[in-house]
């Protein structure tokens, strides 16, 4: 098993399993709504022209998240 890291450190194209979502309350709910929660799979797809935010594939949909929020999402690379 590879070492856990935060979502913003996960390389593009590598699938991660969400371990924990530590975001603060006002964004946590929204992140859950998109299906990003414990045990769900997430793949970084590409970043925007200025490097932030980045797009992720979650449950078949493409969702953009800021680096700052991704720091609080802990994933295990597969």
């Amino acid at each position, binding site marked *: 098993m590879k070492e856990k890291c935060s979502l913003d450190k996960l390389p593009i194209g590598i699938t991660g399993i969400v371990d924990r979502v530590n975001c603060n309350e006002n964004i946590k709910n929204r992140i859950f709504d*998109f299906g990003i929660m414990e045990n769900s799979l997430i793949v970084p797809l*590409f970043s925007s022209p200025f*490097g*932030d935010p980045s797009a992720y594939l979650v449950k078949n949909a493409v*969702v*953009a998240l800021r680096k700052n929020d991704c720091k609080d999402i802990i994933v295990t690379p597969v």
Partner: protein
Amino acid sequence: MFSTDKSSLKDTDISNCDYKISLAGNPNVGKSTIFNELTGLRQHTGNWTGKTVEFARGSCKINDAEFCVTDLPGCYSLLSFSGEEVVTRECLTKNRNDCVVIVVDSGVIERNLSFALQVLSVQKNAVLCLNLCDEAEKNGIKIDCDELSLNLGIPVVRTCATGKKGIDELKQKIYEVCSGKIKCFSVNRNFEGIDILSEKNYEQNIEKLSQISKKISCACVKYEKTDLNRRTKKLDKILTSKVTGIPIMLAMLGVLFWITVTGANYPSEWLSCLFGFVKEKLYILFEILHAPDVVTGLLIDGVYTTLSWVVSVMLPPMAIFFPLFSLIEDSGYLPRIAFNLDKYFSRCGAHGKQSLSMAMGLGCNACGVTGCRIIESPKERLIAILTNNFMPCNGRFPTIIALLLMFFAGTAFTLSSSLEVAALLIGIIVFCVLITLLVSKLLSVTILKGEQSGFVLELPPYRKPQILKTIVRSLLDRTLFVLGRAVAVAAPAGAIIWILANVHISDVSILKYCTDFLDPFGRFIGVDGVIIMAFILGFPANETVIPIIIMSYMASGTLVYYSSYDQLFQLLSMNGWTITTAVCTIILCILHYPCSTTCLTIKKETGSLKWTLVSMALPTAMGIVLCMITAGIMRLF
């Protein structure tokens, strides 16, 4: 932007109909398309989250029963406690619904199911509408409808992106559910322990629901391909890449403006010729009828002149710009703009989705302000509302185009001059965006300090817009909108201004008193009293600014009959307009208080007089200062 028919709104008085149904679902799953198909109305649709922020109501007849249909704003969950989601939840829990049509995107079914389950926990009678089925099938997603129906305990119907297909079946199922022919059952809803209305157990609730939806989708959905949405991935590589992302965005804007400027010129000329011709005939007619001078002046010089300006100059650019803009909207490119620019919005303490409300502001600032509801956090939303007016709306845009054509491109209309105007327009839009960012930054470090909230934005797959339908629809709506506004606002404004210009007190007209009074101040900031007066009188509708200027000049003795930019240019030059005047007028046009409708909308959305006043004072002060600086610099040369 919402064009729900007023007459049908009356018809659908809730008490009149036999059954009441609502459409609910995640954002951008095609609820409005389904709504339009059911009711025959023409709610605007677009391929991005948050296109519909207000409810729309309509009615439809199925068999012999009358149905009242409500299109709810899309939301990701009923459990959240933010903005538009509260509206949806209230509507589902407090109002009577004989049937809820849960619209889901077949391509993102697992996440959508979680929402469907939430709806089912407060609403027994429902129909699941698997929308965008054609798209999902293309991507190799196979959904077993019968199995899904068994799992959820409600009927399941497939529909496709463009509506039409499956709509009859959907209507039938709605009818059968409402009339009790089909009984929805809750056998497999083994999540009854969940009280979705309590905020406390949010985390456990949503996790449990997510597990259930995962289980259901494992049982009912098969994925035959692993590589989904290849076209979207390819396009995203180009449209959001480091190298090409931003240049392509600017180029698209440029092409959009160029087509608008070039294409609008000809119909504009034809229309003003036509109006000029009719005007002469009207003069003759009034003479034959022996109408008093006052009536002739008021109706022809006042009302008719203003009307013809608004229609001939305002209509063509809008009739071209908006259909094209709708195509971009339908394609799914708008959220990419928000994605591309979010870093800078974030640095300025604002939200990337602000670029979406700004894009709506290009159409109408009142719509843009309402559109700010898509931004969840109150602080960023307020910033977006207060700065929306910096985007020139369709009442101001043609004024800017006209001034650019006359003062910067030469009056001869050639390819190079149209390219020049398009380039200048990009410059102006970039300027507007920079001002917006600057003011957002200022607001977020001063009066709107606070912690930055997060940013989550869905990027939908690119979809091929229905070109013909979109263009025709948008063209008709826009034309009707401009014509309606011309009659409702421009005509009375024309009458008032004519009265002001022609009622004399000791040989000087009231208008002249006002403009003379404002003149020293106007001169100081690089314009003149007439222009300042025009912006003051233009408060109800910015479209009337140029006609007011024309009328004031014409009333002051310079009798010029204008029918083209050429003659208008002469009239303006004769009254002392220079490049400086044009530049300062454009600056004032962008930077002054919002129109009355927008002010009322801001009051409604913020619920505060203070913020409404701030939104008026801020751009006005900036406009005056900037004009002063510009005029000062220009005087040096």
